Each structure stands twice: as structure tokens, then as C-alpha cells.
């Protein structure tokens, strides 16, 4: 219980830091912290495999890529003085937040959560699902990643 509320507060704080920090590298580190906290939340929600994959893939690889690009482009000298344009956009986003929160606050969810078995969220069950029920999306996902690699290399090449 306490774990969830602590994590929730920290998560909201780091998300706010991602959006509102001036320095891009600070934003990136705040996002790493947010991803790490979300991974811990996954583990408390009986999904250890997805949690550790989140750290391995998201926090460990994608964010490193972000940091590489930030260091390559060196945007600290490029952020305009008035970096934030408040106004209409923020109002719409806040309305969206209120609407979402109102939508999900119904009391329909079962008070007693489904009692998870020993193997729920374990690598075995995730792997079984992936290789029996979802094998086609799995293969398509690997092709998608290949396409992404080739596309990124082509897009980022220097034109000679």
C-alpha cells in the first residue's frame, strides 16, 4: 500500500520534471527515473518479466539512445529563451486529465483482485503466450524492429 503511494508521488514528480525542466539532459534523466519507477510498479503488480524488460529495453537502451542524440546535437544552446508556450494547449491537456480521471473513477472494479497463481507474470507464462497464442505478432514485431534499424541507419546517414 505504502509502496504504491510513494511510487505514485515520485512518478508524478518525475513526469513533471520531464516536461518542465529547462535542461534537456535533466529531462532525460527524469524520464529514466520515471521508467525505473514504472518498472518497480510493474513488479508490484505481479509482472516481474515485463518489469525487468522495461528496465532492460526502455531505461537501459532507448534512453541511452536519447542521451546519445542529445549529446550529439548539443541542444543546450538551442532552447529558446521563452521555452514554454502556455495557454490553450495547457488548458486542453488539463481538461483531458480531468475527463480521464472522471471516466476511470467508477466503482465497478472488483474489490477483491483476482488471486494470481504462482506462475502469473513469470517468464514461463509470458513466453508460452508469446509462442502459442501470439506467435504471429511476435514475428511481425521482429520484422518491424528490423525495418526500424534499417530506416534509422538510412535516415541518419550523412549525405556525401
Amino acid at each position, binding site marked *: 500500500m505504502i509502496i504504491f503511494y510513494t511510487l505514485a508521488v515520485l512518478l508524478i514528480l518525475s513526469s513533471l520534471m520531464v516536461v518542465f525542466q529547462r*535542461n534537456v*539532459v*535533466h529531462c532525460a*534523466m527524469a524520464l*529514466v527515473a520515471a521508467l525505473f519507477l514504472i518498472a518497480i510498479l510493474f513488479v508490484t503488480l505481479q509482472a*516481474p*518479466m515485463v518489469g*525487468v*524488460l522495461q*528496465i*532492460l529495453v526502455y*531505461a*537501459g*537502451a532507448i534512453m*541511452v539512445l536519447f*542521451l*546519445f542524440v542529445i*549529446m550529439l546535437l548539443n541542444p543546450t544552446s538551442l532552447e529558446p529563451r521563452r521555452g514554454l508556450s502556455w495557454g490553450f494547449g495547457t488548458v486542453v491537456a488539463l481538461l483531458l486529465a480531468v475527463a480521464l480521471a472522471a471516466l476511470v473513477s467508477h466503482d465497478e472494479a472488483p474489490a477483491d483482485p483476482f488471486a494470481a497463481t504462482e506462475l502469473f507474470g*513469470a*517468464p514461463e507464462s509470458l513466453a508460452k503466450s508469446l509462442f502459442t497464442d501470439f506467435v504471429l505478432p511476435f514475428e511481425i514485431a521482429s520484422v518491424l524492429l528490423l525495418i526500424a534499424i534499417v530506416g534509422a541507419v538510412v535516415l541518419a546517414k550523412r549525405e556525401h
Partner: protein
Amino acid sequence: MIVDFGIIALKAFLVLFMVLNLAGVLGWIERKGSALMQDRIGANRASILGFAGMGLINTLVADPVKFLTKEDFIPPRGDKFLHTLAPCMALFPALVTFAVIPFGDALQIGERVINLQVANLNIGILYVFAMGSLGVYGIVIGAWASNNKFSLLGGVRGSAQMISYEVAMGLSVIGILMVYGTLELQEIARGQGTLIREFLPESWRFLKAAIGWLPSWGIFLQPLAFLLFFTAAVAETKRVPFDLPEGESEIVAGYHVEYSGGKFLMFFAGEFAEIVTAAALMTTLFFGGWQVPYLLRDGFHFPWGATWLLPHLAVTLLQVGAFAVKVVFFCWLQILLRWSVPRFRYDQVMRLGWKMLLPLALLNVIVTALVIVAVQQL
């Protein structure tokens, strides 16, 4: 409930205590051992009342005092918060990885069975890789926050090297996972207790006679994977021959250059803790972890039929001792490697990681799969 928590806390404390002490002793072995190998005397100036202890006082007493009392320097235009955060991010994954490394079999005290492993996660080795991938941040952030071109160059090289060899390391372990059928490190260590001849079918008599008496350690079942993993692990820890990111003679200590005092000590200790981590992983995956050959739960059962029964506590002590000896051996091996081979160039490092280790690891996976199917079908 409290006793359970206390036992876990005690295990965590013991493991951290041993790792940090071993990291310190490794520093001494490195300085004195390298001196021996290079036919010089090494560090022996600092002494207490005339007792210099072969450089122990110098490395274990004088050096930490020197590091901790130096001025804490942050580069003027560097990022203050990130400069302080980077060494913590380098040290944290190296220490936290030990939570899943088993240093003994289940110890039975009275009616309580204590698993000699701090945390028995069902994702086991993936946790180790996840923490390893977090180790890149220490380099990247340290390099960026120093506001120094050499440091940035070292950091970018270091992080590129680390993420390249993470892939090779992960793929080389897949063979081990296929052979032992589990992600949990304690189960992998336990699975290395049986002899190879239990797995071979009856009709392969020649092979059974030749190697069947060996315990089914990872090194015998997956020799190529061990070589790949050893190379990738040494590259991950950025030790020589892969230490171009912090090359002392080339880019002025790379991403370390703007760090002094306590923060440099944290980077330094993090590097030695990573050596211990790599050694512990190698023993657990490939050399049986805490297994002593032919030592089962109740005593020795030699393949020629003789047995030697031992009490449970003696068996456990032997196993923990075996683990410690193996880990120290691999740490020593990495230190020996450091002072024996020259440094790789950066393009050689990248070529090795992507063009040699990766295809070999994939080949290893395919061949392992074929052999497993062949053994099961016959």
C-alpha cells in the same frame, strides 16, 4: 516474519560486506601483482610504525584516506547535480547485481531452510542484465557533466562499447539457459551438480566413457559460450584490453578526468565491484557456482563408486568456500589479463563486438539447439 526479514538483511549485509572488501583487496592485488609481473617493487612507501605489509597499508589505508580527504571538485561550467549523480549511477548497478548470485545451497538450521542467496527472483539472470544496462548511465552522465571534450569522447566511446557488448553477453548466455532450462541462478547452479553421463543416451557409449564422468558444468557443455561471455564481460567492465574509454595514456583518463576525491573512489570501487560481479557470474553460469565436483547434499559421491559422507554444515561450508575460491580465481584472472595484453583500438573493439562475437553467439545458440534435440530424440 521479523526473523525472515532479519535473515534477508543479514544475507544482504554479508554479501555487500564481502564484495566491498574483495573490491578493496583487488585494488591491492592489482598494484602489487602488477608490480610483480613487471619486475618492480610497487607501492610500499606508506607504513605504520615501520610496518608496510607488502603494500597493504599503502593501498588499503593510505589510498582511501587520500581519496576521501581530497577536495571535491566540480568543473565550473559543468552540471553540478549530474556530476555528483554519475558516480552513484556507476556504483549502484555493480553492487545491486549481487542480490541474485547464489553463494551456497539451501542451509538447514533446525527446521528453517535458508536459501544462500539474497533474493530468489524468478527472472534471475535477466535482473543481472537489466542492472548491467543501467551501468551505462554512470559513464554517459559523467562524461556529459564534466564539460570537457576528452571526457565526452571517452564517455561516448565507453557507452557505445558497453551497449555493444551487452548484446553479445546476453546472446552467449542463451545457450546456458537452453541447457539448464531455467532463468533462476540458484537452479542453474543446482543443475550443474549431476554428471554428464546422466544426460547422454545409452547408445553413445564412447562419449559416455570419455567425458561422462565430468560434472555437467557450463564450461564442459558450452565452451564457446564461456569464451564469448568472458570476452563480453571483460568488455562490459571496461577493463584492459577494452579500457579505451578510460585509457590512461590516450585520452587523459577519459570520462574520469574531471573526477577527484570521493567521487573518483566511487568510480574506482564500482569498477572493481564489476570485476567481482563478472567473476561471480562466470562461476555461477559456467563453473558450477558453489558446486564442488562430486559433492552432493550428504557427502562426496565419486564416479567410481566410493562415497564419503559428511555432515550438512561441513558440506555447506565446503560449498561456500568453493564459491569464494572460484570467484577469487576469476578476479585474479582478469587482473592478470590486464597486465598482459595491450589495449584494443576503438574500431577493433566495435568490430570484435558486432562482427565476431554476435555471429558466434548466434551460431552457438543454433548448435546448442541441434545438440539438445539430438540428445533428446535418441
